[in-house]
């Protein structure tokens, strides 16, 4: 009994030790600045006030916006899940030529600045777009179809952005699911339909919930896409926050709204985690399911082909369009290489602060550091929160909160809090902000895997005399490798594509690729902007392939 107590105490102190580093990080670089900015919302003429908050609830507009945001985020997440699910199945069960290429390519949208994505979609699906012109020609229509500027259009673009989240998170989990469960069910006479809904889906539920909630939060915070596609008809809270901060310099209302937004996503997140707890998490048997060749089954093959055509139209075609426009001279529509030539010269260094090519180096540096930091912290958090204990969901929600606070709020809170300190004048502030945004992602990806890691392996390893550290490096990391890779990919992608906070925090020597792209656009250098967008897509793509390569040499345990 005493022994048990000692063990418990040891376990708790271990947990605290594990959690202390990420907690310290979050307190200094998130909760303290957030407190600094939100307190302005509560102070009026040096008195405490709730009037800014009451203002929100008095406004019919804000409430309308809130209900729209929920609706839009829920439907987007659901649709992304439906579209991504078959993709997760295919990549986790079949081998085919160009699979790594395909998976990496579908992750590219995640890093693309929304201005470029809007370009891709307008040229493809706009009223004068390629798809409409083809349809009008084929069916002799007199008017173009309103494909893009609608609620459906918003869902379409959100799917484009978030598709890789579903494919990768569920795919990684599915891949690690041992075939034995399926065989057992089948041997008991269950048909494939029953197996799917009674065995596979429940086993995948943690991953499904993880990916759904991440997509939901992203769509909840969606900003440019809602506005580009919806016009002024639709708006998220994020739009109002932006307007208050940047059009009116009204930090009180801006912060009040930011806090309001955070509380709502927090509430949703908590409900979600709570419902997730309802699912019984038994120790799963992890393994790698044997993959089949996709051509072995005619029906699968033809269904897959249809699926790929669909994915190509929605996910890949816009990237291709962006790429093509980089080779076209602005205004004249002639083919040219001068956009890229400009990118490799120093002609525009006065815009980027460093040579344009140097911005690639900056982006890679920040992304590399973000991967390192977020993976380390997420591992510590996941181990610290593993298992069941009271208050776990509260902790987890507190770790997830950075995802629900807009980058512009984070950047402003840094300016308020770290003024005059070295942090604000030092490039490290950028990977720090990126880590903050990527961390919830990494946690949400790794936690389900670590939770379902069978303890028997670890006990076995330890009983064979391996130290816990040694076991961690040889066994744990191997077991959770699919999750590690997914988390690395998204931390990398988030950092490569992040724009809002970076734009407001970066010094001229630490300009990143998306910031450079926006600066080019703002000065009407459209050609070089398109070229830098294409370059951003290519270098991210190459990096994804590289990270994905780490998956290859998996040995089945």
């Amino acid at each position, binding site marked *: 009994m005493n022994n048990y107590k000692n063990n418990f105490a040891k376990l708790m102190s271990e947990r605290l030790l594990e959690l202390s580093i990420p907690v310290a990080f979050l307190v200094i670089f998130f909760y303290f600045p957030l407190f600094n900015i939100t307190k302005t919302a509560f102070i009026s003429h040096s008195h405490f006030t709730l009037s800014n908050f009451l203002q929100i609830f008095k*406004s019919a507009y804000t409430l309308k916006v809130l209900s729209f945001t929920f609706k839009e985020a829920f439907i987007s997440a659901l649709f992304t899940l439906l579209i991504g699910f078959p993709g997760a199945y295919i990549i986790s069960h079949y081998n085919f030529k160009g699979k790594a290429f395909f998976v990496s390519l579908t992750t590219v949208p995640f890093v693309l600045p929304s201005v470029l994505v*809007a370009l891709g979609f307008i040229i493809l699906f706009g009223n*004068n777009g390629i798809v409409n012109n083809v349809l009008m020609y084929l069916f002799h229509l007199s008017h173009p179809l309103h494909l893009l500027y609608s609620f459906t259009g918003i869902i379409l673009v959100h799917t484009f952005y978030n598709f890789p989240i579903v494919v990768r998170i569920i795919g990684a989990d599915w891949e690690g699911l041992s075939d034995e469960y399926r065989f057992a069910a089948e041997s008991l006479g269950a048909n494939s339909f029953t197996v799917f809904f009674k065995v596979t889906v429940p086993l995948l539920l943690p991953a499904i919930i993880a990916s759904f909630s991440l997509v939901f939060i992203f769509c909840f915070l969606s900003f440019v896409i809602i506005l580009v596609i919806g016009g002024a008809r639709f708006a998220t809270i994020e739009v109002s926050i932006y307007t208050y901060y940047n059009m009116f310099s*009204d930090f009180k209302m801006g912060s009040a709204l930011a806090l309001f937004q955070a509380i709502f996503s927090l509430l949703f997140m908590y409900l979600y985690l709570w419902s997730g707890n309802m699912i019984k998490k038994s120790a799963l048997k992890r393994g790698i399911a044997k993959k089949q060749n996709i051509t072995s089954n005619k029906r699968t093959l033809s269904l897959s082909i249809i699926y790929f055509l669909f994915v190509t139209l929605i996910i890949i075609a816009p990237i291709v369009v962006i790429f093509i426009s980089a080779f076209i001279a602005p205004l004249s529509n002639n083919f040219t290489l001068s956009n890229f030539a400009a990118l490799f010269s120093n002609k525009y260094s*006065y815009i980027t602060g460093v040579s344009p090519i140097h911005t690639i180096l900056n982006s890679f540096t920040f992304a590399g550091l973000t991967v*390192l930091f977020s993976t380390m912290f997420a591992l510590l958090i996941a181990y610290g929160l593993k298992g069941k204990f009271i208050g776990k969901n509260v902790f987890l929600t507190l770790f997830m909160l950075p995802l629900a606070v807009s980058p512009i709020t984070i950047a402003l809170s840094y300016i308020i809090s770290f*003024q005059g300190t070295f942090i604000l004048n030092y490039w490290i502030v950028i990977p720090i902000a990126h880590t903050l945004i990527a961390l919830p992602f990494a946690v949400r990806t790794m936690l389900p895997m670590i939770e379902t890691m069978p303890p028997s392996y670890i006990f076995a390893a330890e009983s064979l005399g391996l130290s816990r550290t040694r076991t961690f490096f040889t066994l744990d990391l191997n077991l959770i490798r699919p999750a590690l890779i997914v988390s690395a990919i998204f931390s990398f992608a988030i950092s490569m594509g992040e724009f809002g906070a970076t734009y407001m925090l970066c010094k001229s020597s630490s300009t990143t690729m998306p910031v450079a792209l926006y600066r080019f656009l703002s000065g009407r250098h459209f050609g070089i902007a398109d070229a830098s967008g294409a370059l951003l897509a290519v270098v991210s793509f190459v990096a994804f392939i590289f990270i994905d390569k780490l998956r290859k*040499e998996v040995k089945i345990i």
Partner: protein
Amino acid sequence: MKKAIILLVTFVLMLTSVGCNKKATPVKTTPETLTIYTYDSFVSYGLPEATNSLFEKKYNCKVVYKTFGGVGATLNRLILEKKNPQADLFVGLNMNNLQKAFNEDLFIPYRPKNYTVIPEQYRIDKQWRVIPFDGPNSLAIIYDSEQLKNPPHSFEDLLKPEYKGKLILEDPRTSSPGMGFLLWTIAVYGENGYIDYWKKLKPTIYHIYPNWTSAFDTAFVKSKEAPMVISYDADPAYFYHENKTTRYKAVIPKEGGWLQEEFVGIVKGTKHKKLAEEYVDFMLSNDFQKEIPLHQWTFPINKSVKLPECFKYAVKADKYISLPPDEIAEKSKTWLEKWVEMITEE
């Protein structure tokens, strides 16, 4: 597996070390550095690049322009740093945010030695807290003459059925020209009439985009979604200069142009007041003013400057209208809220 980790770690370290080396290079110290905050496109249009060296040579100093996004974001930075100012000058304030800057008491008044180059009617601030350096300019309807033969000539014209679905707009919640256009309609129709006007304008609107880039570059030029867009009066000059085309033309509605000027102010708390004053004088001199048209695509405030050839395609308003800055500061939130309410109702 080990290999994989080692790979990952080396990869990350490699990148990191590269990043660190680069930052380690010491910054050369120069006698005096003038730090100027401005909005992003002021830098990327290239005006500082074209003029800095001239001033630096003359005063043996260094001029550093810093930007943190659009004019709103950069002004925010200035306001947040009020107790601990990092900038000596702020360049690029406009009529929409003038009063906000005054309310925050950000600038030291200074009347330039060469202030007489500013035509009297454009000296907006009688206390010289801010000094205009370009203008007057106006927003304008830019149209594609290949798709639209008869452009509208007034705000009333825009309501005609022949223009149904032909006008691309920017969103006033997120874009400066969008806000400018909204204020313009208020200047024309008054705060009691603009909502009615917009209700009638709705059918003419093709789509409202969140920023100038997606409206102008993507929808208007690249995808040719609709033949009219709200942009700036000197845009035809830009098209002619870049591409020798006169296809895109501009109209300023006959109700009057929306007066736009840009201002510079010396930041309170500057440690280089003398140099900052010299810089303001420099901005009004011919050396600086003559670079404005082809870099900023606006009219210089110093009217003795000869305009480049392509500016004959820019349109000039016959008269200008505006709203008092204090009224904009006080009421624009309410105006915007009413507008949002109107535009979102189905």
